[in-house]
């Protein structure tokens, strides 16, 4: 079953590093799975932890957040905030019974097209291992 399962992964990428890195993967024609769909934000620090929960509620099987390497943030410290908030969220998700493999965080710079491919592949692999997700799904209310 897991062979057919194609997880749906929502990714939040910072504009300056990982989004640019993903663009570089494109210009270098590096091939990776099509499961990851990207939302561009200016900084990984912009990602409200609730977005992750929301994505899981809305049908994502996994969430990926990626920004500049710690210390290299375009906005000086945004990724530090992201790292702290999202570490906490990851533990909280685990506490609520969500497989922690559904949530990945990484640091990919604008020059790391290859690393982006690896990050995507890992996120997809992890989400496949965790299986389809419906714990958080809002009930379909039919009125």
């Amino acid at each position, binding site marked *: 079953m897991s062979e057919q399962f194609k997880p749906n992964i*929502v990714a939040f990428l910072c504009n300056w590093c990982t989004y640019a890195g993903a663009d570089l993967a494109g210009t270098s024609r590096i091939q990776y799975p099509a499961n990851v*769909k990207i939302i561009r934000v200016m900084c990984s620090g912009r990602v409200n932890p609730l977005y992750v929960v929301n994505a899981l509620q809305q049908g994502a099987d996994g969430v990926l957040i990626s920004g500049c390497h710690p210390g*290299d943030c375009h906005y000086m410290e945004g990724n530090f905030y992201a790292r702290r908030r999202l570490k906490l969220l990851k533990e909280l998700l685990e506490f609520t019974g969500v497989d922690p493999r559904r949530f990945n965080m990484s640091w990919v710079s604008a020059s790391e097209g290859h690393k982006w491919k690896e990050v995507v592949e890992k996120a997809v692999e992890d989400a496949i291992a965790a299986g389809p997700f419906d714990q958080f799904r809002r009930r379909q209310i039919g009125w």
Partner: protein
Amino acid sequence: MTEKPKLGVYICHCGINIAATVDVEAVTEFAQSLPNVVVARNYSYMCSDPGQLLIKDDIQESGLNRVVVASCSPRMHEPTFRKALQEAGLNPYYLEMANIREQDSWVHQDREEATAKAKELVAAAVAKVRLLEPLTPREVDAEPAALIIGAGIAGIQAALDIGDAGFKVYLVEQSPSVGGRMAQLDKTFPTLDCSACILTPKMVDVANHPNIELLAYSEVEEVSGFVGNFDVKVRKKARYVDVSKCTGCGDCAEACRVAGRFPNEFEEGMGKRGAIYLPFPQAVPAKYTIDPERCLFLTRGRCGKSPKCVDACQPGAIDFEQKDEIVTFKVGAIIVATGFDVFDAAKKPEYGYTEFPNVITGLEMERLVSASGPTGGEILVDNGEEQIVPKEIAFIQCVGSRDQSVGNEYCSRVCCMYTAKQAHLIKDKIPDAKVKVYYIDVRAFGKGFEEFYDRVRREGIRYVRGNPSEIFKRGNKLIVKVEDTLTATPLEDEFDLVVLAVGLEPRADDRKTIDLLRLSQSPDRFLMEAHPKLRPVDTASDGIFLAGCCQGPKDIPDTVAQAKGAAASALIPLARGKVSIDAQVAGVIEDTCRGCGFCVSICPYTAIELVEINRMGHMVEVARVNEALCKGCGSCSAGCLSNSIQPKSFRDRQILPQIAALGGIK
């Protein structure tokens, strides 16, 4: 917000770049079915004139008020399409782009999957664009001055251009003299101009220019602010010499107790200097500097009865009390021209650079053939036993370039030609010398390069195709072990001197510059330009430009061309006198803000402050954003307890629909 959204969705084929993998017709059809979409079209090149006209016509004829363009990365063409919207009378921020090229068609091969992904990305963009708000970029005054970091040929040229245009330039150089690497070179390829003869006049110009303030022996410590308004803090290191009194006579250097004891950096360690020194005779400013790590008085507190330099200096310029000085100023634009390091040949132990005195680098060879060099231009080497004039000389190409084993995959672009030039100079000085060049490929790509390479070969320089595996000693000769790959012959050739054509590397202290200015690096570790083809001198940060080898290996003409390009780009905000500030900044919803100040403590730019307002008769504190300081990162928003502070165009209510669209639950 009162107007009902009327969307136009435009899907680009990008020739076949997108259309080959994504079924654009299917995506168009899908877009048509999305809520509020009035028009959905596809076109071969949306960014072209007719493509943009398509959007403009629809805005005017069908009354569109929101536009989605599904094409390349917004990092590429967002400004293009924003402008198109503006020209059609629509607010430029009513645009959202779906990246279906870099992040879809170019990275996937399965047409079905790529098409499905494109549909989702378009749906997400449609979901967001409906909720975007009109924004107006603000204009602020730009400081009519520029900072240039590094005074090699790139920094000098950029400074002269900006200075000549009538704007103030602060030229900061960390070493005691301007001139950089070019000052170390003897002749320049392929014209054989004397490097000093073409550079020194420019060095003097830069020091005497009424608009250029030269800050030599100084380092930039802090840069804050944004395009048009950078605040810069520079540390002028203590020279322990009063530059207003120093006449550059050199009596102090001769008198110095430790004169001639230390390797001279300018001579690549082959010449010697004392603790008080002028890096080279043509140094600008021609002022002496005391090396605080070498000076007896500064390191041990005493130097005989009294320091000899003090006694020797007639104008009384020596000042051991001098302290570092901090200078602050404002500039509108910054040019980074920090240059390069040469590859450390010790990282290739098989060539015995540290072992044999007659294995030298290309830059050492430059100093050796230079009339102003340590030997006065005579080519003399130590073969381990005696000083000799070498008769058999080898050059090895690509040392530290095109070599993954040392982490440098790139070609350094200058080594082939400087080797050819040095081979020619050797033939000139030692006519009976036998010179061989071991190469992988000869890259003579520039103007006049191939002709020069031909000329050198006709002069009797032998080119052998092969990458030497080892250098060792036999008797008083060096043996180069190599396979001639054209004839498949293993060779062991004897030489008196081996010159390693070392490549160019990013500076070891680049990290400091990167942290200072928030720059990015390319995979080769050189500083990264905003776009490899179309914005080769810009960086991702507005108002900061790159010139010269800090961006990648270059020869002198390319460096000068890039410096002139960077100067012209830096002049845009200076000459206009104004810069537009991005409108995508944070804003506070004062009705729900509880004034906790959490955002104030988060903001890296101190752009938020608490102010008192009257809320229905009660004085309460709320957060307020200083839009000139805010950069729109949105960190404050993710930390806000009541979702009251929101970055425009990246509000919760604009991102959440995107998430919903990608999540796929209706």
